């Protein structure tokens, strides 16, 4: 057990200080989970199982409590992904407005499957549940920005531009 614990990634001491301040703000350490997950994702790029264990240990939570939050929000990533993460909402509203075709188009253009990353490491395409912006359906979230009422042509433009920038966001 101690061997496993030692193998866990660690927060920097500066981070730990920040986390401590954060926890002190809430009645329960659990309330600090979302901001701490953001910090962890910033530090470790994505939230591997080990990072999730670290977060659980740091906040004194069950690992499952952390897993539930990490998987609920699509803004948290459990795997490394491309420079551009294209999250296509395929829930009812977006589906009725062409989300399925959009996913197909993206996968065909980028020659990857849903969940896959292009070999140049530029793009990852995933399907997500309702992004909460149904009025703008179909919605694609690209990194932290929502792109609403998008269609295939719109995405083509985006892809060409992104490629042009050679991977710099």
């Amino acid at each position, binding site marked *: 057990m101690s061997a496993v614990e030692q193998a866990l990634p660690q927060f920097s001491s500066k981070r730990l200080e920040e986390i401590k301040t954060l926890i002190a703000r809430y009645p329960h350490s659990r309330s600090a989970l979302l901001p701490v997950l953001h910090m962890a994702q910033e530090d470790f790029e994505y939230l591997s199982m080990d990072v999730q264990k670290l977060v659980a240990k740091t906040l004194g939570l069950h690992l*499952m409590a952390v*897993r*539930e939050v990490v998987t*609920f929000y699509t803004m948290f990533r459990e795997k490394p992904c491309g420079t551009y993460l294209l999250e296509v909402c395929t*829930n009812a509203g977006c589906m009725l407005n062409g989300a399925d075709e959009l996913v197909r188009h993206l996968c065909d253009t980028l020659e990857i499957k849903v969940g896959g990353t292009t070999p140049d490491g530029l793009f990852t395409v995933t399907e997500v*549940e309702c992004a909460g912006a149904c009025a703008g359906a179909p919605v694609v979230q690209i990194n932290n920005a929502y792109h609403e009422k998008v269609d295939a042509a719109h995405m083509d433009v985006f892809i060409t531009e992104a490629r042009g920038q050679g991977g710099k966001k």
Partner: protein
Amino acid sequence: MTALYINDEEVTVTPGTSILEACRENGAEVPYFCYHPELSVAANCRMCLVEIEGWNKPAASCCTPVAEGMKVRTQTEALEKDREMMMEYLLIHHPLDCPVCDQGGACKLQDYAVEHGASHGRYAEMKRAVVDHDLGPFVSTCMTRCIHCTRCVRFADEVAGTGDMGVLDRGDHMRIDGIVEDCLSSELSGNLSDICPVGALLDKPSHDVSRPWEVTRHKSTCTQCPQGCDITIESRGDEVIRIRPEKDGMEPWICDRGRYVYDAFRSEQRILEPKVRESGGLVAASWDDAIGRAVELMKGKRVGIVFSPDWSVEGLTSIRLLNDAVFEGAKVAFDLHRRDMRSFAFEEGLAMTTQQIEDSGQVVILGSDLRQRLPVLMQRLRKRINAGKPVSRIGAMNYRTNTEPTKDSLIRPRDWSAVIAFAMQQVSGLGKTAAGMDAWMAGVEGRHEAGKLLADALMDDSCALLVGEEIRSHEDAAALIYGLDLLMRACGHAEAGKDGRNLISEGMNPQLLSSVFGDVRTSAGELFDAASNGELDVLLLIGSDPQGDGLFSVQAKQAMDKVPLVQVGAISGQISEYAEVQLPAAAYSEVEGSFVNMEGRIRVAENPLSSLGAERPLWKVMMRLIQDMGGDIPAVNLDELRAHVIRFAPQMEHAWRSSDELMITAARNNTATHASSTKAPSRSLDLISRYSMYREGAWVRASDLLSEAGCLHALDDVLVHPNTLAGAEGERVVRTSSGEQSVHVGSREDVVPGVLFVAKRGVAGDLSSESEVDFVGGAA
């Protein structure tokens, strides 16, 4: 009280009740999935919709509290439409595979689909499939059938306290997952299959075995720990298929030990026919021959009787009758975990009911691994902790409870008297005292500050002390227990002459045992020593396995090397190597009889399973022995036998004559007093024998299912604080008086330094009965 109308009928319920509960109480049917009386309200299945006059939408009844004058309707056309839609929604991804699902016939989803669902599905799109999980030996999964009611998740959080089930992802991707290293870490995991309203979480051992309508249900009592849970044994013919908590029983849950021990009923370890030893081996014999052999061995001899406390009340009493009829003056023992046999320690069992314990202002666990010992009681305490009520603990290890106690103090067993003395000092400083307390306190030199925790709890209006194995197996148990009694009296939790203490017994029937055997009982250790010293000629072992359980395995072995053994019981076990004769006695599932649990609650089993072989109820075996030994048979039927029981324990009469008064109290010795001892402990390290619910007890060792779980939850043979045996972790050879053996030493920071927790037993000897332990290459 709140008055409201349900379908035009006026009913009154406690304020704050939910509409769903009000309907259930008053016989109005409302369908539901996610609601469970023992769990928090999640309100996520939306099946429980009802109409409330003046509300413009149907309301989820499980999360809507009643209000004065509310008019609720549970049967309307609109509601039927809503329910049909809810069912359609819940069934969208369901595989509709009832014919191959174990839940079929006892499934809410199936029932409601028939009652409220449409006859055709309209969903023609792709259905999703969900990966299954390996949740260990007891729970199998078919997650595609899950309707996401989250009962299992709430169970893991609130009841088991392990938090190892959870909801991952959201929307259409939502799925239930379990975090599993090897298997679910809860000792209550078997309840998951009961709690899942559909066929997603299933009972693994009975998977694909039977259909709910094929089984016969037998009301019975689990005897695997002193809790004595109310169980229903489900059987097909004489084969046990499952054990479940009884519906409307005292407790909604049972533990995995009590649930899965049933495969031992049919194991190869069962004694199903009389056997006698012939040219080295045990061979089948007729009852006549076997009894003849037993009589030959025992007639006119000095006999020592060791029996298990877990037989029925009738069976136990028949042992006493045997003793009185033909072995007058024999040594009798049934306790394999007690070193101090002075009178106070005779009086066992709880002075309070589990409900009173749960409700009292303070609860203090004194030296017990309660989660392993009494998982269901621990669950009650967990409920308390979750409700913000304190549970504190003093003990030699931070025993895992899955929900942390509110306060906690680590002490060595040798410090108990100093702890009690310090508590006495504290309470007497606050003006609380009892006759004899000052003298007791004065007899103890040291003071240990953990006593503060105890004193604080005792100063509350109500306080429950749970006295566990660390004290019970203590060399000075009687004095410690007396000290605790004084404290309880001083603080007004017990009247003079009473104790109010809850001493956790080793097995079932503690109150009855003190009534029936109080005057003839000796220590098992002494009895074995007597046999080794030539003071006894033969041992009669009735269901007990002193080699596999308890503190005296070394002495037991020496004794059996010396004198012949007559074994009566249901499980053969390793001890059978020594048996000259084996007489089969019926299992607890197979007898008509009564059982008393640690609270003193009596339960009578009336429709037992039929026997598998030639075994007979224990009392019949005893009567036969009396007859063939030339004694007068005291009872020829159960009624006559019960008349004898009543002679020893008059309160039992109620259980058989009327059905209300179902509790008995122990025959307590109120006069004995025991001064605190000043004896210095004989060794430098304290030894505590550690209990594993998957390994202790002859029945459990005969169960493959529990043995498998035992491997997954294996305990270190020896567990210490890292400073106690510096660098000793890993495989080590240990030298004891009975030879060398290899043990696995583990270490944990939250064990008090200076203590060896010993879990390993076996032929080479139980470390915990050694006065000197020598770790080869290490200090001890």
